[in-house]
């Protein structure tokens, strides 16, 4: 029997969680869970398929003495309607945090997203963590992201013993990542809004996994943006990934949304249209300074990966 702590990692089927597990498996006992499927992961790691908002989930806490939670698992924006996403992402997270309290889990990392700030023409650049979360003002489809954050924030202040750290990363990209931006980067033809090419930030999935690992190891609760200090216009990023641009009429606002709905573009959904129009540039300096973090991969590394895989017809 070793003195290793035990960490529960949700969303274990995703590329990011896999990287986090790879980074932490030697120092901690890992319990990997996913609501979609039982994940085949590294040797010696317990893996479960379980719904966070079902009673059976508590059995995990009864069976294992869990010391920390890394909550990455999320129903993606294109995976279901916003009602179902709310149930899984918000109510499921509440259940999870309540279980953490009940079973004296003393460290929690919650993965959020930069989407919570909302894309607006009035956004300043280098948004810091104290900026209002305006995403739900713009679209009902992002309510679950904002509510999940608000919930984690309430637990952060109300239950300091949980030591909650909330991370708001910029676009995560790289091998295996399946978020809407990565889907766009991996396409041969990618839609763009005519006359708009907002500034964007990208972080490699390996760097984001390192950021989560370092946040867990140093345990300094709070809310942090995670982003590299490098920026690129959306259309330029697509071109560097070898995408051909498909211009979509951008005015009036309703037109591109209707086109997206009509064509069922899951990588370019109507509710994210503002993010392809206006910038949400976040400031990751607080995280870098607090945790002594520096991303290793450059934008070129991220885009080269997409281009090379596309050239080999792998993506």
């Amino acid at each position, binding site marked *: 029997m070793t003195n290793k702590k035990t960490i529960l990692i949700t969303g274990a089927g995703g590329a990011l969680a896999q990287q986090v597990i790879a980074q932490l498996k030697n120092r901690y006992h890992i319990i990997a869970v996913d609501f979609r499927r039982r994940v085949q992961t590294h040797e010696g790691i317990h893996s479960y398929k379980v719904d966070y908002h079902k009673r059976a989930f508590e059995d995990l806490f009864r069976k294992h003495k869990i010391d920390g939670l890394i909550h990455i698992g999320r129903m993606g924006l294109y995976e279901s309607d916003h009602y179902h996403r709310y149930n899984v992402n918000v109510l499921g997270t509440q259940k999870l945090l309540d279980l953490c309290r009940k079973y004296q889990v003393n460290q929690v990392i919650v993965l959020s997203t930069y989407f919570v700030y909302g894309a607006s*023409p*009035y956004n*300043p*650049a*280098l948004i810091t963590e104290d900026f209002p979360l305006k995403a739900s003002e713009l679209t009902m489809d992002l309510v679950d992201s904002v509510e999940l954050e608000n919930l984690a924030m309430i637990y952060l202040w109300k239950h300091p013993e949980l030591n909650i750290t909330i991370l708001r990363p910029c676009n995560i990209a790289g091998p295996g990542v399946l978020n809407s931006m990565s889907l766009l980067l991996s396409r041969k033809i990618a839609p763009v*809004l*005519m*006359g*708009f*090419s*907002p*500034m964007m930030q990208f972080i490699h999935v390996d760097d984001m996994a390192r950021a989560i690992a370092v946040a867990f190891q140093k345990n300094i609760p709070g809310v942090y943006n995670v982003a590299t*200090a*490098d*920026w*690129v*216009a959306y259309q*330029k990023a697509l071109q*560097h990934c070898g995408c051909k641009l498909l211009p979509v009429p*951008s*005015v009036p606002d309703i037109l591109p949304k209707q086109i997206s709905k009509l064509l069922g573009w899951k990588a370019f959904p109507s509710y994210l249209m503002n993010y392809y129009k*206006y*910038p949400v*540039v976040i400031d990751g300096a607080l995280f870098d300074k607090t945790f002594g973090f520096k991303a290793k991969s*450059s*934008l*070129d590394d991220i885009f080269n990966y997409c281009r090379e895989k596309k050239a080999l017809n792998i993506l």
Partner: protein
Amino acid sequence: MLKNTLWQLLRHRIVTADIEKQIDNIPKPVGSFGYDPWGYNREGAKVWMSLFKPLYDHYFRVEAFGLENIPKQGRVLIIANHSGQLPIDGGMIGMALCTNPHGPRAPRAMIERWIPTLPFIGNALNEAGAVIGDPENCAKMLRNEEAVIVFPEGARGAGKPYKKRYQLQGFGQGFMHLAIQEKTPIIPVGVVGCEETIPSLGNLKSLAKLLGMPYFPIALPIPLPAKIILEFGEPLYFDGDIASEAHVEAQVNQVKSAIHMLIQQGLSRRKGWFK
């Protein structure tokens, strides 16, 4: 591939060697793709500035005085009078800054908040260095040691009718708060000639409201080739604690007086609208 080659050929035709050199000489940190967080892009700036230069040199025949007053590096607020319906004055001050023989600077003009909603125009202005007029943006750029251009009259100045030419309108006080908080020198600028580029007879308020614009002038659709004179004054320094808004207002009035003097100086150099 063909598109890239055509663009490179076109770029080669547009970007002049002088602009290429001047923008490369600007001491401005950018990311690995040549962008900064506000969307300024060195390559984009070269294209837009090159397209704008003939207007600066030949159409408006701009003469800039006092360019030596602009610091070669470090934070600075460039505060000017606003006029002429379109932000031609911002463009001309920007061009003067980035082609300054005493040391070029990237011009960070604060633009109206509705401009980023315009397709193509918002991105083009961002690439050339402009950003929305947000106090937080301005403070961050000053901390980033940028040269920020502010028109404290805002739409009140730009949209005023010709009968109010060279009458300074109410100044917002935000720039003074920033100058004090961020310990930033102010360079006052008197702009002469932009009033005559698009003389306006009045403002169609209901049409402006319908289009979501701050004003809609009754004016010619094309700017007249009025001669533009830019008078850059000596730096003004304001520091200490902000005792009260009345105190800030008094300091704003000092800047306003300096700009008024510079406008008079510019008007005395001019021999008419076009010369």
